[in-house]
């Protein structure tokens, strides 16, 4: 039996990925260039008994998905730069209260309203540092329509597994380009269910670390009653200012992700075995990079690509290893140098990091990258 195929935009694929992952609640506020996600969800969710709600603004949308997730739903919101900035306060709420949710953010030109229809990659830093306070961050940067579909599913899985907000951040090119997508059969891809409590309602504590760093989460309305707050809290969910508890809980929240980088961090290595020059790239830019690497190889240059699929946690270990092996790192980004700073941190002065930074709404083309590859001596 042949699989279902379709010719879709990245955004449409994202919506279908969410449905595959069992998403049954979408709260959003329209913004270019992410509107197609909401549009598909508004059509598809009610068909499967799910709920689509268009809230009054992005803050309301973020609040609604957090509320719905606490009531047991698998939740998604979609937005773009200005909306992401507005959601920041409540993203922090999701982190501290440990509420699974997926935030799909299409990167367009910024800051502010910027260039709503132009691609960019300049939201990657605020994916980690946007909200105030210490918190974990997971952010995926897909590079094709198929991958957008799959990474949205993975985002749901990570979100449930680690009980924390997860972001998927395609750039506008990936979000709006159309490619053929092959839909997996039901059961073909892993779908991680929420870890529900095994104890009785009387014994249940929403942050009970006796079950490990990621305690089970009960749903409102499922027979369990408990308290959730955005204040620093104890294992039973009630607020505390006790220093030891606060420190321990904050560290656990971050450790959940940091101690599991090997499970979370994914990447692709392309022609790296013998590479002298490595192009580190993510999102649509990695497609230009692969093109450029191919051309470079044809011209006898030992170039390769390290493609970041999981932007946060950052692939520190892998980059550090690479830095010890190659002569130069080229990083093309549709921003003024963000990933570049992380690479410098990881490269530790061992190899030069050469950036190609474009924020003009145009894609970085293979030629530019090739040129830069050739600069590495």
């Amino acid at each position, binding site marked *: 039996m042949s699989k279902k195929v379709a010719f879709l935009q990245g955004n449409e694929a994202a919506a279908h990925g969410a449905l595959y992952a069992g998403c049954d609640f979408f709260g959003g506020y329209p913004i270019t260039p992410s509107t197609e996600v909401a549009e598909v969800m508004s059509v598809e969710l*009610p068909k499967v008994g799910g709920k689509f709600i268009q809230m009054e603004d992005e803050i*309301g949308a973020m609040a609604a998905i957090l509320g719905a*997730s606490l009531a047991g739903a698998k939740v998604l919101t979609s937005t773009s730069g200005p909306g992401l900035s507005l959601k920041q306060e409540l993203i922090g709420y999701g982190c501290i209260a440990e509420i699974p949710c997926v935030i799909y953010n299409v990167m367009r030109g910024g800051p502010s309203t910027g260039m709503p229809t132009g691609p960019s990659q300049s939201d990657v830093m605020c994916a980690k540092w946007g909200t105030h306070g210490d918190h974990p961050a997971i952010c995926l940067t897909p590079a094709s329509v198929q991958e957008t579909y799959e990474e949205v599913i993975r985002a749901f899985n990570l979100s449930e597994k680690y009980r924390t907000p997860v972001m998927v951040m395609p750039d506008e090119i990936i979000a709006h380009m159309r490619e053929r997508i092959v839909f997996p059969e039901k059961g073909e891809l892993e779908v991680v269910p929420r870890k529900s409590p095994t104890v009785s309602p009387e014994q249940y504590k929403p942050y009970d670390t006796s079950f490990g760093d990621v305690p089970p989460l009960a749903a409102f309305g499922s027979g369990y009653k408990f308290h959730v707050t955005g204040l620093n809290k104890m294992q039973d969910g009630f607020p505390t200012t006790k220093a030891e508890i606060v420190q321990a809980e904050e560290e656990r929240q971050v450790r959940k992700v940091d101690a599991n980088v090997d499970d979370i961090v994914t990447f692709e290595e392309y022609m790296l075995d013998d590479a002298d020059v490595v192009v580190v790239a993510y999102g649509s830019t990695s497609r230009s990079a692969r093109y450029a690497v191919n051309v470079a190889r044809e011209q006898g240059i030992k170039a390769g690509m390290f493609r970041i699929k999981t932007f946060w946690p950052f692939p520190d270990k892998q980059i550090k290893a690479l830095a010890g092996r190659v002569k130069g790192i080229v990083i093309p980004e549709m921003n003024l140098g963000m990933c570049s700073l992380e690479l410098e941190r990881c490269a530790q002065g061992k190899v030069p990091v050469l950036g190609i930074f474009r924020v003009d709404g145009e894609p970085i083309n293979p030629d530019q990258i090739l040129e830069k590859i050739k600069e590495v001596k």
Partner: protein
Amino acid sequence: MAFDYDKWIRPGKLPHIWCPGCGHGIVMKGLIRAMETLNLKKEETAVVSGIGCASRLPGYIDCCTLHTAHGRAAAFATGVKMAKPEMNVILVGGDGDGTAIGGNHFIHACRRNIDMTYIIMNNYIYGMTGGQFSPCTPTGHKASTTPYGNPDPGFDIAKLAIGAGATFVARGTAFHANQIDKLIVEAIQHKGFSVVEILDDCPTTYGRRNKYKSVIEMMNRLKEVAVPVKAAEKMTAEQLQGKVLTGVLYKEEVKPEYTAEYAKVIERAKASK
């Protein structure tokens, strides 16, 4: 017989954090009596708040409780209710939380007419942050940020809610303690978005600054300004000067309830498959 509040209060959580004489405790008791009257199931009831002194209420109530971010209670609650329409969803919070930073979510919850009850404890001030004026502080009054008297006109919360499309709006006071539960009962029973404003007092940050000598004086003011809607009908405009109407101020049952409407969307969608 003494009313058994303990049944609804989480063990070990009292005394609560509110100051001596703070009206929020009186409202909480009214809410508890209402929940008892309606015989709500704790596991099927969510109490949702924002941030502020009033918003600390959910921590004490033995239900599914959600203390969200400042101003966001209505939006979180909308998510809860949409995901689990069979739950009772009760919002609680202060005037600042609900009408300042939370004003947008408030009016949109009114507009949607989603079946939740919002209890606003209006003490005319930002209590928790130390008494800055709120959108409900009367003009001319003193707050920590209106040293020369408040130049801002205040909201009439009921008028705002009605303007935004709420279908049930009531007002009570902390002085009229025995009416609080009755208003809340009626609000919860109403199918649609219901707003219950309870005027109460913040002796700590508002009372002193505005020369109320005691909690009792503030209580007595509530007694004096309140006029039940029924009584008001027989009063002249002059007599009503400076008074505040109490009771059920507005109720309509024509506008459809939101989750019920959404259920129809689901039906239509399934039919279209």
